[in-house]
């Protein structure tokens, strides 16, 4: 027994050391390509801390009236993009998920489409929309909808694929049509999952809208970038705190809703 155990352990430690070596090698190579200097990083850190502590703090409370309407814009943008995205994604997810797809080809096409949406960052979408729609909230909403769809199609389809197939079978066996299968067999089971993912997406969208604003998508992100560029750092801090509070609020609210619905 002892002799059978030893080679296994040796093999395992060989794997570990190869792994460690590979990670170290990658660190060196990437450090070289990015010209990253660890000593420089340690050296500038106190300066950065000082910069953040003295220039960004304390937050300027008097800036609140300046961005309150942008904050409301951000919330509205997140709501519109989540709901719109969720509705379109639900339809596409039903067409794409294995138990409900009308044809395997449709499945492949929708998956590819979702992958395109997901892997091109929302910020890039916003940049494409800015020349067409002009700077403003419309661009922000459109980019958020596309970004939201990318991930929601995938999550919804996964939710649908996880359901208990017995209930589909049951509705079918009593002669239910495709719509009846959807209405009575599929949807009741996946609603909790869909709502949960949508709420998660709402939080993500509120966070994302802070950065969408930087490329001309409106909302609080525009205010944050604008104030940093004008060196009004304390106002930016206040705006960041306000967004954080908004996110925490939605987080708490969506947790309550999830607990009630699930």
């Amino acid at each position: 027994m002892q002799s059978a155990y030893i080679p296994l352990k040796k093999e395992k430690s060989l794997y570990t050391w190869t792994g460690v070596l590979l990670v170290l090698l990658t660190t060196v190579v990437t450090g070289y390509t990015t010209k990253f200097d660890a000593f420089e990083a340690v050296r500038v850190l106190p300066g950065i801390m000082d910069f953040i502590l003295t220039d960004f703090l304390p937050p300027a409370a008097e800036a609140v009236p300046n961005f309150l309407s942008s904050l409301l814009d951000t919330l509205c943008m997140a709501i519109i993009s989540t709901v719109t995205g969720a509705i379109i994604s639900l339809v596409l997810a039903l067409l794409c998920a294995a138990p409900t797809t009308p044809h395997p080809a449709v499945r492949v096409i929708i998956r590819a489409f979702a992958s395109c949406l997901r892997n091109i960052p929302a910020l890039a979408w916003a940049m494409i929309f800015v020349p067409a729609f002009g700077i403003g909230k419309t661009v922000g909403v459109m980019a958020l909808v596309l970004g939201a769809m990318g991930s929601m199609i995938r999550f919804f389809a996964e939710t649908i694929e996880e359901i208990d197939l017995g209930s589909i079978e049951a509705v079918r066996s009593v002669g239910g049509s495709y719509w009846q299968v959807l209405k009575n067999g599929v949807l009741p089971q996946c609603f909790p999952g869909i709502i949960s993912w949508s709420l998660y997406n709402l939080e993500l969208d509120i966070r994302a809208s802070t950065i969408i604003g930087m490329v001309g998508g409106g909302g609080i992100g525009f205010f944050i970038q604008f104030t940093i560029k004008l060196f009004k750092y304390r106002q930016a801090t206040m705006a960041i705190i306000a967004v954080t509070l908004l996110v925490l609020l939605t987080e708490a609210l969506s947790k309550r809703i999830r607990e009630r619905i699930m």
Partner: protein
Amino acid sequence: MKTPNNVAIVPEKQKTLYTVFFFVVIGLYVYSFIHLDLALKSGLDGFVKTGGIISEMLHMDFSEWKEVLKAAGESLSVAILATIISAALAFFVSFMAAANVSSGILAWFWKGLTAGIRAVPTLIWTLIFVAYLGLGAFPGVLGLCFHSFAYLVKAFSQSIEEVKEGNIEALKATGASWPQIMARGVIPPIQTALISWTALRFEFNVSTSSILGLVGAGGIGQELSLVMRTYNFSKAGFIILVIFLMSFGIEMLFNRLKLNVDKRKLQ
């Protein structure tokens, strides 16, 4: 359930809950539309223009492929380096931040600090670092590191807190020291979770690193914002393709790993 042969699939109470929920959502939705007053009337025109831009993008201009690929390599390097550094730092810090293996005040301090860092998006951290250090990949790595570190500390320490009390208790009873308890009782059960979280964060870092250039942190994002500013859509098309392929490739790679963590638990 009104009559025995009319069995509700969804319980009656749940049903009212759903109805209320949907009406609230519809109300908020309509209000948001009215409040934002989106330019949907002129929207059709915008869609036509977008179609034109996208078709122009599809006529990709590969002429500067060397520069673009080099920039893509830089972005990828930034993502890899930031992930390695932040995972290594977070690994050590997470033991101090986990309530079950650390002391109360220490855990509270690290949790508070990392929650504060996480509240600020990566792009804004990078913007701050660019403001202090100037343009280039260096502030990009630091900005990405900062946020990844805070994220991974939370993820790792949550995994540590999920370790069964019995494991730690059993080792304590044998007189093991703190490092021995960590090495034998805490790390082995959470090994896969740690790797999964790091991989998940790496996926996120790759897609983020490609847009860091928009705030002046180098890489492929810088190229993109440059050509978009000059309305050179055919070059932008190629750059977006490269960004897509990079993040798609990583996604494919990690789909095979089957990351068994629930993202919704943490942001």
